[in-house]
């Protein structure tokens, strides 16, 4: 009986994940389209609603190509390794209690542990494809995810300290009065930035930078194996948005409407934001990404832990004030960094070139 319940739970989870993945794909296409002055898919179903299904059918009909020089075994299992954690993460979500009848006290811990498996799949794909673009994409992905996981976990540490628990359900319940995004705006900002990097989204989409690496780690993949990577990525978008909702946006808390509606509304608001960023920003360079992660986000996340500790021993309003100050300083510093980028080198060059122009005209 117990096993049946768990099996049922797994099936329900997979269905939930896949349905939401499909919706995220559709939202991405429509939103990007409208932001770029076009319509996006319009032909398949109402406003292209069936487009993800059409894509899936098309991919299923394609030939599954394995490159001649590929490391066969690793090449074949890499998509599975990348796809599985996208589903497994949901074991830590609070409603698993109702569906499958078990809960984790250390939910957050499980989420990050499982999510850390995804880059392994990407690295395997890049390594086994026998293609230098794939290899560079795979390496970039592994380096990037490891670098950004540290500040991400530190940013979440603050939330855990406030709630006094690692159980996601408890964290949501602790936000009944005031959402964490108000209490910890700085942590929320850091979490959102690292989240973009963790799921390889613009401006941190280096593993699949099409202007440099063709398609990155999945260059050599086709058919259903490519689809698995594709689904895993969109599932990750939904997962991370859900996590952001649970940690910072108060989860299912909200007036009038039922909890599940609030939860989905907030999650899709985060999805909307992620896609909005994609429509707006260019991509950073790989060394800039690393420098920002280690020299910018990591110290900032440590500062956030310190601020939270001060807040826990004093009171909430001290915390909010300190967090807002830290956030303002952070935003100012990052903006200034971009505005003055290359200024010194440009000034040097201008001075040097003025001399060589005089030489040329003389």
């Amino acid at each position, binding site marked *: 009986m117990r096993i049946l319940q768990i099996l049922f739970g797994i099936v329900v989870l997979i269905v939930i994940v896949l349905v939401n993945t499909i919706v995220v794909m559709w939202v991405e296409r429509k939103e990007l389209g409208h932001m770029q002055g076009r319509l996006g898919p319009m032909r398949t179903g109402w406003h292209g609603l069936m487009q993800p299904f059409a894509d899936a059918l098309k991919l299923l009909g394609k030939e599954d190509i394995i490159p001649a020089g590929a490391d066969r075994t690793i090449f074949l299992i890499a998509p599975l390794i990348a796809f599985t954690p996208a589903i497994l993460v949901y074991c830590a979500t609070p409603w698993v209690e109702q569906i499958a009848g078990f809960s984790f006290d250390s939910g957050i811990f499980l989420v990050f542990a499982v999510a850390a498996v995804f880059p392994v799949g990407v690295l395997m794909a890049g390594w086994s494809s026998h293609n230098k673009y794939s290899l560079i994409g795979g390496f970039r992905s592994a380096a990037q995810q490891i670098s950004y996981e540290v500040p991400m976990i530190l940013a979440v540490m603050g939330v855990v300290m406030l709630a006094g628990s690692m159980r996601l359900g408890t964290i949501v319940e602790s936000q009944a009065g005031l959402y964490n995004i108000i209490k910890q705006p700085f942590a929320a900002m850091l979490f959102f930035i690292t989240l973009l990097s963790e799921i390889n989204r613009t401006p941190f989409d280096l593993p699949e930078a099409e*202007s*440099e690496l063709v398609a990155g780690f999945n260059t050599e993949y086709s058919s259903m194996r490519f689809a698995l990577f594709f689904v895993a990525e969109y599932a990750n978008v939904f997962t991370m948005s859900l996590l952001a909702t649970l940690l910072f946006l108060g989860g299912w808390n909200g007036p009038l409407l039922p909890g599940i509606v609030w939860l989905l509304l907030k999650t899709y608001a985060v999805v909307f934001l992620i896609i909005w960023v994609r429509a707006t920003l260019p991509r*950073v*360079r*790989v060394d*800039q990404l690393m420098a920002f992660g280690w020299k910018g986000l990591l110290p900032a996340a440590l500062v956030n832990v310190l601020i939270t500790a001060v807040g826990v021993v004093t009171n909430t309003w001290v915390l909010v004030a300190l967090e807002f100050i830290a956030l303002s300083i952070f935003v100012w510093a990052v903006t200034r960094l971009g505005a003055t980028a290359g200024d010194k080198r440009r*000034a040097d060059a201008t001075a040097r070139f003025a001399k060589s122009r005089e030489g040329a005209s003389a």
Partner: protein
Amino acid sequence: MTAPATIAPVFENLPGLVDVGVMGPGGMPLAHTTRDSFETVVEMLRERGFAHLEFLTAQERSGEEPGVEMLYGFTRRADLTRVVLAVPLAEDDLEIETLSWLWPGAAVLEREVFDLFGVAFEGHPALKRIVLRDDFEGHPLRKSFELVEGGVTAEQVAKALESHGVAPTSLGADGGRQAYFDPFEHLAGGDPALKSQRMVINIGPQHPSTHGVLHVYLAIDGEQVVGAEPTQGYLHRCIEKLCETRTYKAMPAMLDRCDYVSAFHAELAYSLAMEELLGIESTPRADYLRVLMGELVRITSHHTWFAAAGLDTGALTPFLFAFIDRELILDFFEEVTGGRMMFNYIRPGGVKEDMPEGAADKIRGFLDTFTHRMDECEALLTGNEIFRLRTRGIGFLDPAEVEPWCITGPVARASGIDIDLRRDEPYAAYDRMKINVPLAYSGDTYDRYTVRVAEMREAGRLALEALNALEGIEGPHINPDVPRVIKPEAGTAAYGRVESPRGELGVLVISDGTDKPWRLKVRSPAMSNLHCAPVILQNTKVGDVVAVLGSVDIVMGEIDR
């Protein structure tokens, strides 16, 4: 014909000059010299200020003696004097000293002459084919080269290759091309402390962001670029050879295919050359129509570059914003000329036809809102922190390198070199307009971006000015004196030049008295700009290569021709 008196001081005391005359009715001074004194003459000309190598090409000798005549066009920027130096070479001794030690940019131009005429250059750093396959037999621009009627079949190609001892499969994926620098020479380096090893990677020709079929050999040490060499020829369509087989009236349609992003400019350069050769003038109305079209196509060309600049740095939206605006201009072109890309519109003596009813109002509506539209496009990139991080202080071009590498256009202007043919040597109606030339002074990728964006705004203003002027000008759109059959006098030549979106685009037409040109040469600004890649990519990282090369604005159609 004798050269104008003002040019006399230029040629004073030059040793070994055979005679000094003019190229054609346009009066461009032409000096003949011998191979022996060629080097001294060039050096002395350079000392006298002729530091810009405008073109370097050759033609088949038309007289009794067989052979090739080398043609060098030099410009003195200070007073805009131009001279052409001709050096005849005998058939059994096709060899001349290289100029690549004075102008590094001459190296690729000489390779092209070697490829198409078979002239060997003494002391050239790496003389090999540039647009044709390495195992190609013969030199197509020689008149002795036989064209195959009706094209060739795959079987014939295989058979020909076999007869040359080349199995078709042995050409390899790169079609028989190799780097002219030795890639392995660059592998020797590396940082001993880090125990790093150098690596040579190929970017292109089938890479999504190399702007067509550009192929770059890149030697890298870790993430650092230590050597770069662009290869070309994947889009070579023998346009110069084909031009020799078509009548003069068919030429604009051929030249459209050179620079397919801004086709009007090649047509215009050719028309200017022909007008000089035939001694006719275009009408005032045609002059303004030429300016209008030229400026509008400059906007669309820069739109294409703007879109690519966004994509190269990973931003998707600028691409679509730019293309929405570009479509509106292309619609106008379609209404006026019938074509959206290949216009065949500007011709000797004027333009094909006037604007139809209502077209002017439509484009006026667009130009009135153009500043606002540019603001919207620019808002996506100019102030963006990440875009600035990616472009500022990266890919410097020293102005001292501009003349040696024959660089022109926005790339030169971004390094503070104040040149613009529209203002310096006005053609069409530009002498009746005021042209502001945007400049920048640090010569990095971001400066090339800002210069082009400023040029787009300026082009919008000029187009509107031309449109306003057109309202007050009546008259024919083409000079009725243009002969039905164009047959310029034998032995005359003319060189037409315009400021295309990529730089100075020139067309050299040499006539032999028939209805087909003896030789037609296109000076490609993008080709010279592209081959400064080794300079411009110094001290950059691999991740920057695409963004830096993109800022040069590459159109492979024009580079390969």
